[in-house]
């Protein structure tokens, strides 16, 4: 194995994991705070992408304004989803299956709407998905890689500060841990759900902004990407937002590096194997301590 090829794949794997991390964190945040598996995220991701696409390509808006347009529309759609969908179903004490059907079908509906509006030809945010590159120690580093990693890191640090250092973030965690007790303390739980959706919308929009400059997509693409977010969320541990981020990085790297041991066409299968192993053996998430305890138990 050539070491520089290994480093190149490692670097590209880390860079590409940036948008996957953002999608996984958004999914995990909604699961933690709102307590639903929000498969409608794929539809919201579509809205973010196509809004930015229209802003950038049709209206010739600068990138920041296109991003803002994408965020505002995703935010609006998230509010509608929460207010007229999730809250209504919750008031009826709907089962988790109903939430699943609703969120999944809503995503599909968005997919069809965008397929009708924009067709099924792959589209990217920018005319070219090629980014200028630099050679650093024999590794090709593109400007997109640097932008993606920098933006994702900054957003995750800000999210960490928000969740742990601000009153609103702590209220969110409190409402996630025990909504009934949070209500007793006067916390407006449905409003916190809206805030969680607002944060998730920002993460999704940023993710699609990065993704759309790197890869072309069709309306169905976000739905296919959701499985990655689901697996990262499970692997990171239910309710552990930053655990999902680490899991997403680990999964991306594993998928990228697997090329050394298995043919490239089977790379995507690794995700499904992980999904199975995670749910069957680590349903509460994966941690090194648990793994060691499990191995210790087997030895004993």
């Amino acid at each position, binding site marked *: 194995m050539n070491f520089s090829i290994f480093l190149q794949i490692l670097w590209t794997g880390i860079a590409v994991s940036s948008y996957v991390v953002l999608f996984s964190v958004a999914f995990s945040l909604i699961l933690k705070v709102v307590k639903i598996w929000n498969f409608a995220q794929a539809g919201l991701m579509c809205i973010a992408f196509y809004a930015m696409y229209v802003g950038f390509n049709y209206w010739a808006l600068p990138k920041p304004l296109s991003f803002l347009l994408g965020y505002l529309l995703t935010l609006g759609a998230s509010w509608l989803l929460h207010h007229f969908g999730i809250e209504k179903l919750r008031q009826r004490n709907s089962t988790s299956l109903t939430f699943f059907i609703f969120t999944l*079908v809503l995503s599909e509906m968005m*997919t069809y709407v965008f397929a*009708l509006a924009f067709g099924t030809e792959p589209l990217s945010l920018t005319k070219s998905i090629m980014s200028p590159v630099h050679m650093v120690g024999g590794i090709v580093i593109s400007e997109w890689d640097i932008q993606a990693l920098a933006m994702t890191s900054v957003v995750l640090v800000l999210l960490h500060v928000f969740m742990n250092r601000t009153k609103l973030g702590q209220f969110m965690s409190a409402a996630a841990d025990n909504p009934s007790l949070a209500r007793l303390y006067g916390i407006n739980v449905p409003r916190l759900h809206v805030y969680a959706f607002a944060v998730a919308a920002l993460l999704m929009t940023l993710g699609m902004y990065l993704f759309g400059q790197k890869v072309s997509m069709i309306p169905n693409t976000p739905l296919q990407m959701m499985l990655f977010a689901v697996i990262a969320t499970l692997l990171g541990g239910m309710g552990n937002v930053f655990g999902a981020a680490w899991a997403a990085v680990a999964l991306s790297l594993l998928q990228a590096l697997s090329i050394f041991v298995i043919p490239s066409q089977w790379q995507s299968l690794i995700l499904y194997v992980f999904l199975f192993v995670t749910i069957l053996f680590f349903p509460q998430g994966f941690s090194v301590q648990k793994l060691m305890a499990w191995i210790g138990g087997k030895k004993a």
Partner: protein
Amino acid sequence: MEYIISVLVLMGIYVILSTSFNLIIGYGGLISIAHPIFFAIGAYTTGVIAIHWDLFAPLTLLIAVAVAVIFSLMLSLPSLRISGDYLLITSIGFQLGLLEVIKHLGWTGGASGLGNIPNIIDGANRSEMFALISIGLACLVFLMIRWLLKGPYGLLISAMRDDEVAFSAMGRNAMAIKLVIFAIGSGCAGLAGGLYAYYYQYVSPEQFEILQSSMILTMVVVGGMGSQWGPVVGAVLLLFLPQAIGFMNFPPSVMGPLQGLIYSVLVIAFLFLRPQGLTFSLKKGSQ
């Protein structure tokens, strides 16, 4: 006329799929949406056997059912000890993972699909014959499931679904019942797959993706989950309704998404306006 007959063939296939899916999700309370993968396994088994060996068609269909049952055990044996959301996610992973395998195997035709499946009914009345067989098999599956649910085993299924803890506390084996329900439902999906492969003489992995799960789920939800006639009504309605736009001569690039849009809007409307499904009042009347 040919077009209507082909819709009738599909109707029979989807009645089998939705009725058997209703057994799993509506009666068994097992939240799995991997039904299309057993449909796919039946279709591929039939296709591969028909291409490589000249077996008697009913025997091929029986093998398709058996293979679907074996694969259902591969999913249910390890994963039925978990439930709810986890089972749902596992079932999605199982479905998409197996499709990924199918897409990369040479003998399944890979991503471009398996074609040239031999025709088993020649002549001018081919479609009519298939429509008869399809509807006949759909009736058979419906009656078999009805018989199962009306009998003592049906009572056990209802008891397990309503309170699994109490059911197990009485010394009953809930896991065994879940396995049987899953196997029967999946076997029926395999039968539908076999019929599909014989009729269309072509199968491809993309026909069994998550959108197919959504379509079968839609039929069950719109018709009425946990009702015996619900999935039948749902399948008939959802197959005939989008045909209304079939006469508008839209190009395929518009027709596909438009039909999908109709399905998804219908499901969402039913979830909010009539979550109990269309056959609810009929059920109430019969109780």
